């Protein structure tokens, strides 16, 4: 089938004309989201930049980070700077731990790879979905200290509910395990102190 010269051009012109007039008629054609005024909610898995999780009301006391410095070592672009504290404070299970006297992340260097989150054994660092990080100060403004990085566990729940629930379940389990062990140890000690009776349930503390 041979076509007349220019037939395809007319067909194409009809198509673009349909687009041109169609956008004035049907709003579904215009997929543009006019960003600063219109926003679409970010998907749950969105991740931009890390933050430090804290439990309770006081960010400084509740920080989960124990300054183990694994993330600092693993960070590919080396954008995390940690100073370990001299003293210790109790962590979520009550164990005495170091805490970060300084915890800085350079936003301009971070590449959002999430490796720090993956290596953290304490569920202390997580990814935020906040993406409007622009600042007018390109030196100090881009180096976030631990206060700027601290976010409550409730905030974590609000941005990544599924993941946060998993984390909480895991931490709760560990805490329960530790508490049961402590209780068992206490009971054993109490029993030992009470009477030199036959040692009763030494395996009772396990789960």
């Amino acid at each position, binding site marked *: 089938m041979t076509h*007349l010269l220019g037939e395809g051009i007319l067909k194409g012109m009809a198509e673009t004309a349909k687009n041109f007039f169609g956008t004035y008629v049907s709003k579904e054609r*215009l997929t543009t989201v006019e960003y600063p005024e219109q926003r679409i909610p970010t998907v749950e898995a969105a991740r931009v930049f890390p933050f430090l999780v804290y439990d309770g009301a006081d960010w400084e006391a509740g920080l989960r980070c124990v300054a183990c410095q694994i993330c600092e070592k693993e960070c590919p672009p080396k954008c995390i700077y940690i100073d370990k504290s001299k003293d210790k404070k109790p962590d979520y299970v009550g164990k005495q731990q170091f805490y970060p006297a300084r915890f800085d992340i350079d936003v301009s260097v971070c590449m959002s790879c999430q490796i720090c989150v993956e290596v953290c054994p304490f569920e202390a660092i997580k990814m935020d979905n906040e993406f409007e990080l622009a600042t007018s100060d390109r030196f100090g403004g881009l180096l976030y200290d631990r206060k700027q990085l601290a976010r409550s566990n409730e905030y974590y729940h609000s941005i990544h509910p599924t993941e946060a629930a998993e984390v909480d379940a895991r931490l709760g389990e560990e805490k329960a395990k530790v508490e049961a062990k402590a209780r068992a140890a206490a009971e054993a000690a109490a029993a030992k102190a009470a009477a030199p009776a036959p040692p009763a349930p030494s395996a009772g503390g396990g789960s």
Partner: protein
Amino acid sequence: MANTLDQIFILLRNWLVSFLPAALRPAAGVVLGVIAIVCVFPGLFALTTVFERKGLGRIQNRLGPNRVGPYGLFQPVADGIKSLTKEDIVPLSANAAVHFLAPLVLVVAVFMGFAVLPMGRNMVLVDMDAGLLFFFAMGAATELSVFMAGWSSRNKYSLLGAMRAVAQMISYEVVLLLSAVAVVMITGSLSLPAIVAAQNTYTGIFPHWYIFTPWGLAGFAMYAIAATAETNRSPFDLPEGESELVAGYHTEYSGFKFALFFLGEYLAMFSISGLGTTLFLGGWSAPLSFLTFIPSWIWFFSKVMLSIFVFIWMRGTLPRLRQDQLMNFAWKFCLPFTLLDLVVTALWRFMGEGWMRWVVSTAILAAAYVLMGRFGMRKEHFGPRRYRYAE
């Protein structure tokens, strides 16, 4: 009332000039006309840039610029300020004088073309007997400026772009001129106001525009194709094909010189649309006889803007041609077809009134179009390209 509105610019000019001594009046009248042209068309250019971007956006189901001012209408102001504040870079090894002159030559040459365009009843700056010739002479000068820009930049992309531009413009200039010659054959005059006057009559309510004759339609189609190529618009925008040549002949231009090139390009579009309107679409005459109460200049500018819309529409639709396709199309299709159109025009002229000439000329042109489309533009062969000289 309608007549006053129709002649309002002429009356305004005469009123302004009447304050001067009689000896200065003719010169002052011309200066006022020049000022009007130099203000109106760049203004239209500014509006066209934003409408083009919005139109292209709509064609691609986007919104287009809508941030600066209401509906993005102040976008050209922002663009102008940006291009004025940018650094004006002249390459170290460029020929500075020619590099500087090229955009000026382009803009001046394009502006000259407007001098002979009748933009309304009595609204022509210079009523030249050979206005059409003058217009084409000025149009040819733009090729010079393009080559000046490409050559003086001392950059391979600029030079390639300029060479492409010159090859393309010269090829299509032939078609452009010959399609205009058909009109001259019928009208018997090179004066543009005379050509409009010849079309400004009506049968019943329908006008005698040349596009409504077989030869005129064919001539207009060829004129439109050649005009698109002359103004380097898509799909004939090879000279500035950004995917292969960065920006073509104005690669090395920045700041306001680049803006001047941009301006020159759009002004060329306006002037060539204006000429097409004058030659084939009845210039400033109304499309139906009972619409003559609307001022003539409104008709002229609406026809020009309609042509600009079609330019933008084509840009949003068609992909860029390849250089060999471009040349083949010019020399193997457009030129023979335009020459045939001249023959048909002559037939039309000498067959006299009657329905016979309609049938004969339509039959000849339609048959030629179909046959040339089917056999003339057929691809010779497929397969790998053989390089005859490089082996």
